[in-house]
């Protein structure tokens, strides 16, 4: 708390982005873990909670007549615009937030104080939910071709790798160690995915330290071992996910890529995905487009094109498609690397696995996939997502891009994923929130040193507990879209990539379809199931009654009660429809205030309020597009109020009068 200069400021205004004249007045609080804005209005007292970890940047703008503006931009794309009456207060808040948003020690992070009131046993169980050993066994290893390797058991060979990796049977410890010395950051080729139908595999590593002419016998043997582990093919692909120019430039620094002449039976392929700096800038530009006030269609499309964001998404996807094809259709193993093998490599391997194996499209499987290719293989969460204050040049939306690739696939194959968009959005949210311990630090080694599993909780357990909110009603495991590999259209396909407003405009309620089809269908499904179960029970009872020959009137009325429950749902739309600002120049008419309480769009989640009586948190916090926000965290003061982690601005009354 020593960093907080001003724990409370009154009469602060929270501005709305779409309609800048609309502001809500309230009180701003700073706590050790959150920034909280509480509206003044007596009926609602709506709260907006923002975790310090989510804060990406704070901008203090020039003082105007109305006060001193402060803009908080978050890593989950929420943008909060405040106006603080006194410049002095604003400055104090600004300085405090700057420090709070840039912790220097892990212990400052929320996950170490977060208390979901679970006992030690439950915490442990939560961490055990995702078990990578089980996953490798499910894939079919160890077997005749692949074995587990513990040469890294003390992180002695590669400190960013896990203690256990899978390698080809013919790769001896000597070969592995030798190969690791020839790879950037010692990240030697290891198994990412094994296809038991045809023995093809996806392996991952970092770039070889080949320079212009260096060779390493063990590394060459390592690649041979990978090839031999797949008797169905006499060569392997080596895919370098960097643009050719970058890879070539790396040679001058003593690194580079595999020379086809030196490595027997490899086919080398560049798939140009740009580096983390390009991606960081690309996202920045796209967010600038999102912040435009009343952009024209042109502004938007030009801005989107200029950012290059969708082009990069497509590049990652294309790489994944190439690898999936090589494995599934050609039956050829692939070794993937970029520079250090922890960014683009992770993206591409996980996209490919998702395409290949329907298991990863289930909720559990997706958690396993992230745990395997991102967490265990040493993706640098801390550096990339700024858990702690660090080098801004290391920050880059790498996993965000992967998550977006998944969303793009979900849009193309609506029946193929067990989970829905909300699942993805919440995962992205928590990668940055540091509320759970899964995505801390840069490697398994660091996490074990910090004893993360004993001191924090697992996100996976939390999501699993609430999995009903994350289901895709259109998913059926026996659906044709779920048998085997997904085949996204390759060309022409540019138009298939859409701007993900659910993620990048997440908190702007006015932008999204006002009615959630997912929630409605889930409710329909649930009701159908309930009715079917009820029918079964009644059927049995009827049988029994018929046997005992007693008429029972109760049966009929109960059935009717059940069917009444759902019908009302879709008609509860009355609250959310308010027009946005369509016109600028109707000066002479006073604007009419809405005749109904247009405030709470949350009631628009059609059926949650009606059906889900179990968890009261859900209905209180549902916002219309992302449904359930994070709920089970308590405020540090123990007040027990429910944080709503959205900006809370609902769709607005039309503003006729404009300046």
């Amino acid at each position, binding site marked *: 708390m020593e960093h907080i200069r001003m724990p409370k400021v009154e009469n602060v205004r929270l501005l709305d982005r779409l309609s800048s004249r609309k502001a809500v007045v309230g009180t701003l609080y700073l706590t050790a873990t959150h920034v909280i804005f509480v509206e003044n209005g007596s009926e609602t007292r709506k709260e907006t909670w923002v975790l310090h970890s989510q804060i990406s940047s704070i901008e203090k703008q020039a003082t105007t007549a109305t006060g001193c503006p402060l803009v908080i931009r978050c890593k989950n794309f929420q943008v909060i615009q405040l106006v603080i009456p006194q410049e002095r207060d604003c400055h104090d808040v600004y300085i405090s937030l700057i420090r709070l948003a840039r912790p220097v020690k892990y212990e400052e992070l929320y996950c170490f104080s977060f208390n979901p009131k679970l006992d030690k046993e439950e915490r442990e169980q939560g961490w055990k939910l995702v078990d990578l050993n089980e996953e490798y066994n499910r894939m079919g290893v160890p077997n005749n071709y692949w074995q587990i390797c513990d040469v890294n058991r003390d992180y002695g060979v590669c400190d960013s790798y896990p203690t256990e990796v899978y390698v080809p049977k013919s790769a001896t410890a000597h070969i592995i160690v030798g190969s690791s010395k020839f790879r950037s950051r010692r990240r030697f080729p290891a198994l990412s995915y094994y296809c038991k139908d045809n023995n093809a595999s996806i392996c991952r590593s970092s770039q070889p330290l080949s320079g212009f002419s260096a060779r390493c016998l063990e590394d060459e043997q390592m690649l041979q071992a990978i090839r031999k582990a797949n008797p169905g093919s006499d060569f392997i692909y080596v895919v370098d996910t960097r643009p050719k120019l970058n890879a070539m430039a790396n040679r001058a620094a003593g690194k580079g890529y595999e020379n086809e002449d030196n490595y027997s039976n490899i086919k080398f392929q560049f798939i140009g995905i740009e580096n983390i700096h390009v991606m960081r800038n690309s996202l920045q530009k796209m967010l600038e487009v999102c912040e435009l006030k009343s952009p024209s269609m*042109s502004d938007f*499309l030009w801005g989107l094109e200029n950012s290059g964001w969708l*082009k990069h998404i*497509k590049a990652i996807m294309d790489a994944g498609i190439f690898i999936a094809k090589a494995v599934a259709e050609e039956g050829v193993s692939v070794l993937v690397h970029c520079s250090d093998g922890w960014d683009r490599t992770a993206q591409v391997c996980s996209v490919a696995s998702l395409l290949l194996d329907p298991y990863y499209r289930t909720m559990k499987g997706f958690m396993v996939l992230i745990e395997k290719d991102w967490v265990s293989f040493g993706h640098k969460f801390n550096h990339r997502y700024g858990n702690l204050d660090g080098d801004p040049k290391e920050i880059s939306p790498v996993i965000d891009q992967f998550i977006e690739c998944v969303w793009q696939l979900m849009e193309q194959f609506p029946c193929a994923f067990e989970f829905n968009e909300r699942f993805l959005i919440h995962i992205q949210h928590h990668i940055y929130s540091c509320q759970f311990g899964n995505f801390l630090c840069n490697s398994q080694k660091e996490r074990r040193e910090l004893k993360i599993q004993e001191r924090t909780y697992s996100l996976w357990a939390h999501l699993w507990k609430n999995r009903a909110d994350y289901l895709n009603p259109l998913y059926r495991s026996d659906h044709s879209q779920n048998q085997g590999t997904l085949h996204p259209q390759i060309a022409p396909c*540019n138009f298939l990539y859409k701007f993900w407003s659910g993620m990048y405009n997440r908190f702007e309620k*006015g932008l*999204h379809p006002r009615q959630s089809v997912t929630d409605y269908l889930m409710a329909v499904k649930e009701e159908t199931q309930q009715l079917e179960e009820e029918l079964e029970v009644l059927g049995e009872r009827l049988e029994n009654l018929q046997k005992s020959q007693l008429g029972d009137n109760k049966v009929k009325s109960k059935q009717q009660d059940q069917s009444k429950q759902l019908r009302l749902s879709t008609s509860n*739309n*009355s609250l959310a429809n308010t027009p946005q600002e369509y016109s600028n120049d*109707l000066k002479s008419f006073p604007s009419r205030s809405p005749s109904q309480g247009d405030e709470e769009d949350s009631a628009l989640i059609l059926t949650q309020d009606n059906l889900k009586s179990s968890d009261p948190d859900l209905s209180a916090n549902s916002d219309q597009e992302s449904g359930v926000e994070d709920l089970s965290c308590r405020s540090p003061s123990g007040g027990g109020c429910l944080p709503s982690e959205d900006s809370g601005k609902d769709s607005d009354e039309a503003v006729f009068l404009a300046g």
Partner: protein
Amino acid sequence: MLRSSQPLTGPNRRRCREDEMLLGTILDEGERGFIIDTRSAQAAKQARMTGGGTEPKSSYPQWRRLHRPLERGRPLQESFAKLVEACSDPSLSMDRWLGRLESSRWLSHVKAALSTACLAAQCMDREEAKVLVHGAEGTDTTLLVTALAQVILDPSCRTLAGFQGLLEREWIQAGHPFHLRCAHSAYSHARLKQEAPLFLLFLDCVWQLSRQFPFSLEFGEHLLLSLFENAYASAYGTFLCNNEKERSLCKVKESTHSLWARLNRPEEQQKLLNPLYSHNTLVIWPSVEPQSIQLWQGLFLRWIRPSQHLDEAWAEIQRLVEEN
């Protein structure tokens, strides 16, 4: 809401007592009305040179005029052609695709049409004011605005029957020159002077509404695609000719079958209905932010990308709803 064509004010600022009286009687004492002119202020002014014009404030004191320029005619047809070309070009990189999408300006036209219709609707619903819509001829953008505004305002226009009624009223009987406007479509090099895809633009806007309000329209994309096709080439007489007079002269009603009769047959209706529809009495206010307006893939990419997975999804939705 009223519609008309432009007043023939001309360069000499002619007046017409009857026209002024007509518009005068519509409004009560002290009440104000809005005129939404779908031409830019400049274009409307220039129209005077050729005998047209606008309602001068002095002669129509109770009416406030708003200009909302909507594209029509040749430029709109060009926009359509460019978009179709961009969609079918397989060689485009992602950057070039977005650039071509933007330079076709089709989505900008969708945004403008929706905004204007929303404005008209807002005047009526929120300000409780009367609205007069006109462009130049009153046969193109005028109808686009009045028809769309009704879909936004009136739940009965969102039912299958109500929508058909809307089309009959606001497009067919109102005299949209289908024969001239829906001649050769996007691939033709002929570039006829009178050809313009206003009706398609209307259908696109309706599709945007159905996407933003998936429960509010009784019909789905199928109907809209079917209407698009039939406007250009049809086995039915519904969209023939340019106005009621011509249809009467050609004896359309006696010699052809009506598309509505076909569509309303039970087997056909099944394909057209939206399984998610649930009647509500709301006004549906769409978002016209660029992120909310999307390319109508079902139409523009119909023959280019396989719709199999999306069809399967709809089948699944249908199944879930029916099972219940």
